[in-house]
């Protein structure tokens, strides 16, 4: 049983230990670069597949299944992962905004491809989506690494 009446220097030691372990957690939560590259390639290919003559549901399936399998594989490989949703309301809104942007890009690309028969548009939207995902993952990585340097309990 732990004694409730601990001394103040013992409390400081405990706080130091918490800080150290929180930093270790943040280091583990930072996604590696290969994760950013993998995710962006899957999304970019999925978007770009709409450049094909009659892609059917293949691109959408490729994105959904590709992301699900890649995330599952990454989690098993890394053994730890950060929070799925941002902590702050601003972060949640920013994430919602990015999702809306990607949806608009996805359906906008399909619409232009079909309405105006410009086959290369999905290639451009794929490139933009891929870069967006890469930058997002990279910013998440930097966010966690910055917390490691800061890391007050």
């Amino acid at each position, binding site marked *: 049983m732990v004694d409730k009446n601990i001394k103040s220097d013992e409390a400081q030691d405990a706080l130091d230990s918490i800080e150290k372990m929180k930093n270790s957690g943040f280091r583990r939560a930072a996604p590696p670069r290969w994760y950013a590259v993998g995710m962006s390639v899957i999304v970019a290919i999925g978007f770009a597949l709409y450049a094909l003559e009659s892609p059917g549901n293949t691109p959408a399936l490729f994105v959904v299944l590709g992301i699900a399998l890649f995330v599952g594989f990454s989690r098993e490989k890394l053994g*730890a992962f950060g929070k799925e949703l941002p902590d702050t309301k601003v972060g949640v809104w920013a994430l919602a905004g990015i999702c809306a942007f990607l949806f608009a890009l996805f359906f906008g690309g399909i619409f232009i491809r079909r309405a105006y028969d410009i086959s290369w548009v999905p290639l451009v939207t794929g490139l933009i989506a891929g870069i967006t995902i890469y930058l997002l993952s990279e910013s998440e990585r930097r966010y966690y690494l910055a*917390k490691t340097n800061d890391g007050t309990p």
Partner: protein
Amino acid sequence: MTKARFDTIIHAPNRLQICAFLSSLQEAEFQVIRDELNVSDSVLSKHLKQLEEAGYIQSRKSAVAGRQRMWSSLTKSGRKALASHIEELKRLAGMLNDEL
């Protein structure tokens, strides 16, 4: 504002480290936690069980290539209890700084 409360379940060194580590994460695998704490499987299992019984963590099992893996995460009440415990530690440590 988090209310300061000393938590005897969390305060034990290994359990404190487990909670602090998990607080930065969504979920972590058993081996990862064990390596971070540098303890044996049995010691970690014992502490995880105590935290689970207190409702501070939850665990799930997954099987990959026929091998079982256990994933743990802090529950909402676990995060709350850790935050309250940290507040109390800060209060106590503040007394040390006042003395100096």
